[in-house]
């Protein structure tokens, strides 16, 4: 057992037992980051901050005054604003941007004693499912298919987070999930990813993609670690009007609940014709595991599922087109000079945004424009309400839903790049829950015949992360998934 393969829970106990120090734990991770630099998981490494915080952590541990994550080295998705540290959203347009403020989530993680290792790569402005649209180059999945040296994508948009955690560069990482950006990369990299209920974690200080969907969450190697990390990340924030005032339950405590007596809904719409056979088989295996643990599978229907992706690709770009208007070269980030204000805008935004971001701004601008608003945006909002109602009705028949996280395992870097729609299909199983605002996790549950990880997704009703954690823990126990580290 090396220091970089410890889980957060294990490291927490060993730090408290003084078996290891925060400084050596941090140094081990900094060394691993250097060793695996080729993964391109980090946009910015912050070893100085890491070492300083590790020292503080050891001091706190010595005093016996150490909050939950004291000394735990974490990576931060480069969508979270971090005070004095370059924050890029993996976009050229934020060139040189060092915020003078700290996002609520990272401030909470800091207050919980964690050690920031650096800022993790993502798809530009979190728009993508492969972490290949980053201005700072693609991140490489630490997993390789059997007998192949081909570089695979880590999924996205939180691909840097997934690769860092899977490869042992960080014990955990923050992600953000708008349509699957935590869950899909977690599945591709064989780790656990949790998207909490919309409103559970504050969005304040997180660079916005689609405000009504964006939600921060943890990415870790075990379900327990996600429970520990989420506990430290969430809670009401008066600075975010969409942040919930509900009391936060004890997530770690919910892990041992088991699934006995629970009804697990199996939505038939998630098993389309031609679903990848290995994905389908693993899903069946998951159902069997839960049944063995005392749960009852029930068939449910989410009839509007097929409209989820088109709905998402109207709502998310619409919000993004407006959210990204502030990147205009006037106050921060990149500016390309022009003869007039309009020319400065066009030149700056043309140089600053990559093709996928430009595509979504154009789509979003189009669906909001006069004459098209009713047909697209307004219609999409109505369908979104129907999708949310599908889930509400399903949860009258069951306690949780079990589905595959993604329709395929990780694919090679370079595949699907010429066809945006094929890329968008990656999110087909994760997007509906995002539209409904319900919590979901991805748990690594097995390998394909080529040795690539696959994940299962657990969905529960709003604010019921406890059941989501209990089911996820049961799956993890049954799957006995063999991690990379």
């Amino acid at each position: 057992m090396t220091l970089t393969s410890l889980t957060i829970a294990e490291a927490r106990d060993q730090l408290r037992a003084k078996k290891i120090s925060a400084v050596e734990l941090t140094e081990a991770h900094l060394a691993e980051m250097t060793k695996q630099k080729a993964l391109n998981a980090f946009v910015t490494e912050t070893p100085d901050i890491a070492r300083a915080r590790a020292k503080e952590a050891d001091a706190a541990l010595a005093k016996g005054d150490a909050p939950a994550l004291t000394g735990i080295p974490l990576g931060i998705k480069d969508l979270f604003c971090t005070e004095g540290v370059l924050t890029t959203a993996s976009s050229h347009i934020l060139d040189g941007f060092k915020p003078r403020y700290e996002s609520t989530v990272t401030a909470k993680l800091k207050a919980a004693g964690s050690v920031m290792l650096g800022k993790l790569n993502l798809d530009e402005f979190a728009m993508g499912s492969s972490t290949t649209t980053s201005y700072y180059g693609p991140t490489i999945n630490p997993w390789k298919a059997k007998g192949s040296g081909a570089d695979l994508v880590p999924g996205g948009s939180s691909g840097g987070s997934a690769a860092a955690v899977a490869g042992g560069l960080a014990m955990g990482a923050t992600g953000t999930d708008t349509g699957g950006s935590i869950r899909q990369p977690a599945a591709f990299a064989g780790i656990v990813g949790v998207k909490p209920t919309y409103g559970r974690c504050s969005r304040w200080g997180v660079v916005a993609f689609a405000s009504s969907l964006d939600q921060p969450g943890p990415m870790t190697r075990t379900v327990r670690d996600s429970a520990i990390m989420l506990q430290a990340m969430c809670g009401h924030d008066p600075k975010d009007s969409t942040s919930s005032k509900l009391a936060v339950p004890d997530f770690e405590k919910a892990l041992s609940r088991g699934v006995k007596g629970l009804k697990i809904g199996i939505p038939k719409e998630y098993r389309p014709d031609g679903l990848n056979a290995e994905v389908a088989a693993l899903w069946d295996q998951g159902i069997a595991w839960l049944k063995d643990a005392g749960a009852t599978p029930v068939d449910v229907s989410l009839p509007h599922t097929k409209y989820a992706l088109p709905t998402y690709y109207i709502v998310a770009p619409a919000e993004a087109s407006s959210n990204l208007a502030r990147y205009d070269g006037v106050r921060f980030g990149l500016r390309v000079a022009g003869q007039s204000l309009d020319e400065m805008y066009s030149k700056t935004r043309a140089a600053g945004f990559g093709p996928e971001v430009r595509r979504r701004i154009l789509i979003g601008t189009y669906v909001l424009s006069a004459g098209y608003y009713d047909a697209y945006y307004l219609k999409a909002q109505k369908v979104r309400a129907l999708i949310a109602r599908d889930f509400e009705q399903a949860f009258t028949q069951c306690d949780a839903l079990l589905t595959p996280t993604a329709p395929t395992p990780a694919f090679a870097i370079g595949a699907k790049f010429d066809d945006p729609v094929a890329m968008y299909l990656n999110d087909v199983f994760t997007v509906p829950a995002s539209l409904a605002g319900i919590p979901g996790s991805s748990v690594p549950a097995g390998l394909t015949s080529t040795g690539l990880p696959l994940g299962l997704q657990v969905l529960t009703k709003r604010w019921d992360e406890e059941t989501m954690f209990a089911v996820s823990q049961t799956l993890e126990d049954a799957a006995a998934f063999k991690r990379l580290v």
Partner: protein
Amino acid sequence: MAYILKGETGDWEVVIGLEVHAQVVSNAKLFSGAPTTFGAEPNSQVSFIDAGMPGMLPVINEHCVAQAVKTGLGLKAKINKCSVFARKNYFYADLPQGYQISQYDQPIVGEGAIVLDMPDGSTRAIGVERLHLEQDAGKSIHDMHPQKTFIDLNRAGVGLMEIVSKPDLRSPEEAGLYLKKLRSILRYLGTCDGNMEEGSMRCDANVSVRPVGSNELRTRCEIKNVNSVRFVMMAIEHEARRHIEVYDAGGTINQETRLYDANRDETRSMRSKEMAHDYRYFPDPDLLPLVLDDAFIAKLKSELPELPDDKKNRFVKDYGLTAYDADVLVSERENAQFFETVAKGRDAKIAANWVISNLFGVLNKQGKAIAESPVSADDLGALLDLLADNTLSSRMAKEVFEIMVDTGKAPGAIVEERGMKQVTDTGAIEAAVDKIMAENPDKVAEIRAGKDKLIGWFTGQAMKATQGKANPAMLAELLKKKLAP
């Protein structure tokens, strides 16, 4: 009197609707908590939210909401218990977010009315279409550098109430009365200081014309940002005449936005309909719908002050004032209060006359507001008391008043100091009259013979003999008796 403009082809009537932007009286901005002090150093009142920094989120300022509801109640308008903030998207250098948070199809206040007090004493109700809350933009300063534009964001994010009238106004005069009345109501409520010079109240006028007798609504032009009541009236008249000239020449009016140039008294095209922005309004996903409960509205209602219309009616009914005098007194709350202090326990008509003719005359001449009046309400009341108990004649009272204005002294003290007490002792007056009669027997004979005009000469002599202090009524009575044939 109907306002009719003569054209070559016939008589025309003007149709006017006004949009007033009234800055909410509040110490903090609408969504950011930054201060709103007028005239502060450029860019010193700007939060990260106002500057549109990445990841920043708006949080509604409850005080501004209360101010809008109060205003709605003051306009006897429908308060919408659920309203929605929407983004109005456009690019400009002084609009940091790239959108203005406003309200679109669900404003906080619905239909109401403003009653105009016409000079002939009649009233006319003008419909209010809606009132909504929105953010102000920053200021672009183009004249500080030959090539560059400077941006001051102090105003960015300040709360505005946009109050939209129905197209009910029919003359520049009505438009002026509407603005003055609206200003008066806002100032009574304390929701806007109504200061047009400082820009805390700005007006856009929508103007069209139609042949007298017609009910059609012809193409209108919007004249933007006119910054005084007088200019609004001039701009409307100019614009109406321009429309008539175009129609008379067989042309058509294009819907467009125009600017009024007060120096040249003309309007100029700013942008045509084709160039108009497509604002791509959509509900702001960072903010929840604004939901007001009955108790909140009821509390604000119970705290409403007496408003100008009610006060005016009360002044007419309780004090017996003319509608005109009541109007003049109630236009400013402080004026009305001053009057009521003076009138308390005294003859209200005399009090009104003194306040309007004498005090307002002085204040106008000195360019002072009532708060800076050199004569206090109590002192003016005391002066009226001296008049009422015959200590002073009205001529003497005016003299004392002038001294009060110059010195700020109380009337009692002035009378004391200068021995200005009116002589009401019949004996003293009689002695003076007797002396004059004795010294001028020829004149006594003449008047007794019927030369009535000589009574003025006797009055003058008696006044001179008493240093002007003789009570004029008593003197007249005495002379009449003594000089009777």
